[in-house]
C-alpha cells in the first residue's frame, strides 16, 4: 500500500505492506481521516476566501498584527488551525470572522437559539422586548388596537421588572 502526503508542497511517501497498514490503521484508524482532512479543508476554506486574502495582502508586512489580547493567538494562527484560543478571540477577530461565519452557516451570522437562563437574563429581557416592540408596531399598522394595547402592557411590565432588577444589583 502506498500513501502520499502533501503538506505545504512537501511530499512524504509511505510504503506499507497490507498487514502493517491494517495494524497501523486499525489501531486508531478513525482519527487519521479526521485530523487529516477536516481541519485541512477548513483552514483551506478560510485561506481561499477572497475577503481573507485581501486582509492577508494588506497585513503582509506584519502578518501577525491582528492578535487576541487575552490569549495571544494571532489571526494567522487561527487561519492555520481553524481553532480559537479563547472566547475573547471572537471579539478580537470580529470583522474578519464575518465572511467565515457566512460561509460556514449558510449566510447566517447571528445566534437565534437558546439563551442561558442565569447569565443571559438581561440579554433575554432585551431580546424579548425587541420582539414585543416589533409585534406592537405590526399590530398598530394592521390597526389591531386591542392587541396593541395588550402588547404595550406586556412591554411596560417587562421594562419595569428589568429596571427593578437593575436597581438591586
Amino acid at each position: 500500500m502506498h500513501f502520499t502526503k502533501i503538506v505545504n508542497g512537501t511530499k512524504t511517501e509511505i510504503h506499507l505492506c497490507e498487514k502493517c497498514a491494517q495494524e497501523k490503521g486499525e489501531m486508531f484508524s478513525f482519527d487519521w481521516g479526521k485530523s487529516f482532512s477536516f481541519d485541512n479543508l477548513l483552514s483551506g476554506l478560510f485561506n481561499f476566501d477572497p475577503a481573507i486574502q485581501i486582509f492577508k495582502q494588506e497585513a503582509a508586512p506584519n502578518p501577525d498584527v491582528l492578535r487576541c489580547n487575552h490569549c495571544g493567538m494571532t489571526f494567522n494562527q487561527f487561519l492555520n488551525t481553524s481553532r480559537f484560543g479563547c472566547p475573547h478571540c471572537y471579539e478580537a477577530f470580529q470583522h474578519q470572522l464575518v465572511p467565515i461565519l457566512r460561509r460556514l452557516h449558510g449566510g447566517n451570522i447571528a445566534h437565534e437559539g437558546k439563551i442561558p437562563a442565569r447569565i443571559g437574563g438581561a440579554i433575554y429581557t432585551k431580546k424579548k422586548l425587541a420582539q414585543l416592540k416589533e409585534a406592537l408596531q405590526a399590530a398598530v399598522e394592521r390597526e389591531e388596537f386591542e392587541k396593541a394595547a395588550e402588547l404595550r402592557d406586556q412591554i411596560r411590565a417587562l421594562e419595569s421588572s428589568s429596571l427593578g432588577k437593575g436597581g438591586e444589583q
Partner: protein
Amino acid sequence: MSLEHFLHEASSSWMNQEGPDSEIVLTSRVRLARNLKNYRFPSLFSSEEAREIVSTIQHVALNHFPDDMHAEFLKMDELKLLEKRVLVEKHLISPQLAEESNDGAVILSSDEDISIMINEEDHLRIQCLSPGLQLHETLEKAGKLDDLLESWVDYAFDETLGYLTSCPTNVGTGIRASAMVHLPGLVLTQQINQIIPAIHQLGLVVRGIYGEGSEAIGNIFQISNQMTLGKSEENIVSDLTSVIKQIIAQERSAREALMQTSNIQLEDRVYRSLGVLQNSRIIETKEAAQCLSDVRLGIDLGYIQNISKHILNELMILTQPGFLQLYAGRALRPYERDIRRATLIRERLRLEETK
C-alpha cells in the same frame, strides 16, 4: 466469561430498546458544545486550567446531578487503552478525547444514554442518546442537563454569536443533532445516490457511520445538521426530523417495491447472509456488517421471525476490535480478531435459538 454475561456487561440499555420508527432509525443523538468563561479553549489552555475545569465540573456532577442518573466520573489518564477504546466503539467518547486530550474526562449515566465529555475540543460536550426517532425528546434531555450545569458554572456566551466554541463551525447553538438510520432498501435500489446529494443541498450532512469516508458499511448512515447559527435549536431539530421522516417513507416504499418485484431474490439474500453469520469461522468487519444488515432487513420484512431486532445495533458495536479483545481478555492481531468475530456472532445467534 460466558457470552451472556459479557453481553449483559457490555451492551448499553439503548441498544435493545425500541423507539418510534425503530425499524429504520436506530438512534437519535443530540450534542451541545459549551465552554466556560474565563478559561482558554483546550487548544491553548494550561494544565492548571484544564484541571480546574475538570474539578469544577466533577464537583457539580457529584453534588447536583440527579441521583437517578447514577453518574460515573472517569478520567482519561486513569483508564487503560482498551477501556478507552471500548468507550469509543460505543460512541460514548470521541477518539480525540481518548487519545489527544490533556486532562480529559467523561461523565456517564448508568444507562449510557448520557455522556458529558470534558476538555475535548470544547470544555464541555453534552451528549444524549435515545432509541428510534426521538430528536425533540433527546434535545429536551440535553437541554435540562445544560440548564443544570449553567446554574453552577459561567458559560462563554455572546449576545449576537451565542455559545462560543473552539471551532467556528459550532458557534451559536453549539448543537449537533443526528440520527443513525438503516437504509438497505435505498441502497439496494440505488436511490441512495440521488438522496444523499439532495440532503446535502438542505444543509445537512450524511455519512456512513462505520467504515472510512463516505462508504457506509452495514447500510447505516448518520444524518446531522451542519449549521449552528441563524436557527433555534427547536427549528434545527424540527427540520432534521422532517427530512428523516421523508427518508423513512422512501425507505419503506423501496422495501415494498423490492418485495413485490424480487421477493425470492430478497429472501435468498437474507437467508444466505444468515447462513454466513451462523456458519463462518473467519469474518471481517465489512462482511459481518453487510450480513447483519441483510438479516435485520429480513427480520423487519418478516422473512425471519425468531431472531430479535436489536441484533444489528448490538453486534455492529460488539464485533469491533476493542470489544473482541475485551471478550478475549487479551490483545488480538487482525487475523485473530476475524476468527473471534465469527465465533462471537455464531454464539450470539445460538443464544437466540435457546430463547
